[in-house]
């Protein structure tokens, strides 16, 4: 049986998300209290659309939210999203609730209130813009898992110590893995016999941000990577 997902509120983001989930073969229901939004959502093939206020339990009941595995609250109001997620969780026993949050300060509060994932569009977008604006050419670090794991994109220069060598003979820091080699715009999942060539870009996953400095030296880069 298809897994069911309900999306409550939202405009363009609801539409794009619904389309994307439908192509991944989920059964998707959209609830929206704006009638014009509903008509534009109804144009999407295979999407079930319910016109109503998702903060009202009987609307959620009409949408058979109790059969959904995941509920996603995308309204533009934090309070509405919180109550929607709480109703879904407590009253309709939805396994996973995801909420959009406007105020970055409330992310932790939402999680404390039982919302499984709180996504702050503002802080996420400003974070990406900041990273793009401040990024040096050497490496961009993407902290994941509450900052414990970093993903860095490191180009290999022509005079790098490791160029021309296979991964098995290169000594990387212990807590580091080369997850991917990007070569001529294509990604290669490396094995021990993969040879590093100048011009490659290494996608490095590390649990120790300082390790990237060592990798920088190995790849022939002297500038420090910027941790954002």
């Amino acid at each position, binding site marked *: 049986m298809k897994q069911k997902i309900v999306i409550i509120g939202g405009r363009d983001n609801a539409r794009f998300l619904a389309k994307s989930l439908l192509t991944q073969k989920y059964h998707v229901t959209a609830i929206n209290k704006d009638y014009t939004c509903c008509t534009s959502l109804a144009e999407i093939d295979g999407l079930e659309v319910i016109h109503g206020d998702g*903060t*009202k*339990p*009987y609307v959620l009941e009409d949408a058979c939210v109790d059969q959904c595995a995941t509920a996603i609250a995308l309204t533009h*109001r*934090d*309070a*509405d999203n*919180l*109550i929607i997620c*709480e*109703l879904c969780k*407590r*009253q309709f026993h939805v396994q996973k609730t995801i909420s959009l949050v406007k*105020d970055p*300060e*409330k992310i932790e*509060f939402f999680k*404390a*209130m039982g919302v499984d994932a709180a996504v702050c569009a503002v802080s996420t977008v400003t974070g990406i813009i900041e990273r793009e604006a401040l990024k040096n050419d050497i490496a961009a670090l993407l902290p994941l898992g509450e900052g414990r794991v970093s993903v860095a994109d490191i180009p290999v220069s022509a005079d790098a110590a490791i160029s021309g060598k296979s991964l098995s003979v290169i000594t990387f820091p212990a807590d580091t893995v080369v997850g991917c080699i990007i070569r001529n715009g294509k990604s290669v999942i490396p094995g021990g016999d993969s040879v590093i060539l100048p011009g490659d870009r290494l996608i490095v996953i590390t649990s120790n941000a300082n390790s990237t400095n060592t990798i920088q030296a190995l790849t022939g880069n002297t500038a420090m990577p910027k941790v954002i």
Partner: protein
Amino acid sequence: MKTILSFKKDSKPQTLIIGCGRLGANLASRLSDAGDNVTIINDNADDFRKLSPSFGGLTFEGDGTNFELLTAAGIRNCNRVVAVTNDDTTNLMVAQIARKKFDVRQVIARINDPERGAVCEEMAIQTICPFDLASQALMAMIKDPAGPDSSKGELPL
């Protein structure tokens, strides 16, 4: 005059009210007249005109769900928080913030749709639904048209 000059801040009950509609303004004025320290938050300063001229509390304009504003309004020293904006979800969120984040002892939220109150169960948040109260009072009046309670103009609850 003595009472006005001597501020016994700590001994007085501290009440924070979110929402200065008719209910919020009325409650704030009453509590203030009764000697409570009252602070009221509303997103629009115009509504503070609804407060009685004798209101002696503080007013803050802004979003009542904002942690900074709540802190500035002294939520940490409050004995009770009453959320009475005209929006149910805002009231419920404010109540949860007061209860869970700031550990306020008594938290009351006004909700128009009692079904929504289910989210606050097991959280020690009191909810009040004006329509339920009015409906109960009306039913009592209908059942007992010449009842002693209705003649006094009191709600027979």
